[in-house]
């Protein structure tokens, strides 16, 4: 059940940055992280994958089926930087929100998911009674309630402190393993990419994937990847400044 992105091009009218014939593949159960500067089109790319924006050209398929089919089955989830919780609903109701939208119930998954993210004590709380980390945790549980085949993460852990982040990384990995979920995530945090991704790409200001590397477990190799990524980000930033000048 791999995700195939083929020759995707897109640009907003009058925008400097565009996505330029992007092609890549994410293998089942794997995590691809796309790094890139602000405004490079990372979030737009995720929205194109989620079929929320129609690209100018190219096509996307998941397991040889259009994304639309995945959405119809409720097997696509999206996590935004803002947890997007319904403020009038309790944690339990928020987690169950996709099942309400889809008109299906996921009783077994609900109990399992709630337990895996440690929300058992907070199911009756409203979002305004939760800390930022707990809200993101609720959004994570909501994303996994439908046992998604594909999960898109748009800087979902940005703004959280390190403690919460590492807890959430672990919970994400556990849930991903449970459902064999393919993940595409965008971030500008190199450490987050190294922590979560199986493969890391860099989307440059010309809208092309300049660098793709399989993530390593060994600390030395990670350090080398980090240095390389930092160099690429600096170079791209300078290019972007020239473009905007």
């Amino acid at each position, binding site marked *: 059940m791999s995700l195939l992105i083929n020759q995707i091009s897109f640009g907003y009218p009058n925008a400097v940055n565009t996505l330029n014939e992007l092609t890549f593949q994410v293998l089942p159960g794997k995590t691809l992280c796309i790094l890139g500067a602000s405004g490079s089109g990372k979030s737009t790319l995720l929205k194109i994958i989620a079929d929320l924006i129609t690209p100018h050209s190219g096509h996307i398929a998941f397991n040889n089926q259009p994304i639309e089919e995945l959405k*119809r089955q409720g097997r696509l989830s*999206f996590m935004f930087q803002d947890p997007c919780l*319904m403020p*009038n609903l309790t944690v339990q109701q928020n987690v169950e929100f*996709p099942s*309400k*939208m*889809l008109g299906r119930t996921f009783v077994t998954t609900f109990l399992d998911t709630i337990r895996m993210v440690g929300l058992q004590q907070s199911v009756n709380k*409203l979002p*305004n009674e939760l800390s930022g980390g707990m809200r993101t945790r609720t959004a994570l549980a909501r994303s996994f309630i439908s046992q998604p085949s594909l999960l898109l993460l748009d800087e979902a852990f940005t703004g959280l402190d390190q403690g919460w982040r590492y807890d959430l990384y672990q919970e994400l990995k556990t849930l991903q393993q449970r459902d064999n979920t393919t993940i595409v995530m965008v971030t500008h945090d190199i450490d987050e990419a190294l922590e979560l991704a199986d493969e890391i790409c860099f989307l440059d200001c010309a809208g092309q994937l300049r660098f793709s590397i399989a993530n390593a477990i060994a600390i030395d190799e990670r350090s080398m990847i980090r240095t390389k990524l930092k160099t690429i980000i600096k170079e791209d930033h300078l290019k972007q400044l020239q473009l905007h000048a």
Partner: protein
Amino acid sequence: MRNWFQYIVLLVVLLITWQYFGSSNNTVKILISSPTACLQYFSENKQQLLGAVAITAFESIIGLIAATGIAFILMGLCFRFPSFYKFILPIVLTTQVIPLITLAPFFILWLGIGVSSKIALAATISFYPVFMNFATGYNAISSNIFDLLDIYKAKRSFRILKVYFPLSLPNIFTGLKVAATLSVIGAIVAEFSGTDNGLGKNLLLSSIRIEPELMMLSIFFSALVGGALFGFIFLIERISGKWYLNSNKY
């Protein structure tokens, strides 16, 4: 509780001062009479005064209900046909250029001297805050929420009833509270232009007949009707809006 006590003390002080100057100073007596004189006037004309209150309250309540209903129907159409919102918004905004109370004679010519014309003006005046606040609440919904609804292919009825409406609730109540007092103003102003009975007519008569007791009682009852409407909406909000009333930010 301490705040209530302070307000009660202030009210008592005001009543005593009013009574003192109203009974000792002729100018004050002609302008605003005194509490005891007002009470006496009320006991002598109870039936007529309470009848007027009932009529104005009825016009205001029905006007507010009509305005809310029309605003909700229009917003429903906006949810169903997003281009309709872009079409209707400039029209609604343009209508606000007209000082709406000047429409009172028009409604009397159109609907007659009965309660219909008063209800129409009350509804016209109170429509704008309800509609605009509902629209503002809807526009304030995060674009990510819309994306989430698209991803899970939420049905239109689900979107309206479970997302748009509840998330707009704080704004809807803000609009309703403003509209509650405006509908009373609308009804009274329409009554100025001609009616059989009502607080507006009483206010008009009080200045012609120089009856400050009637004027003060009419002002008091107008405030009472507006306050009661406001209080009723406030109570409904306390019940249905607990989730946002208990937090500064949601």
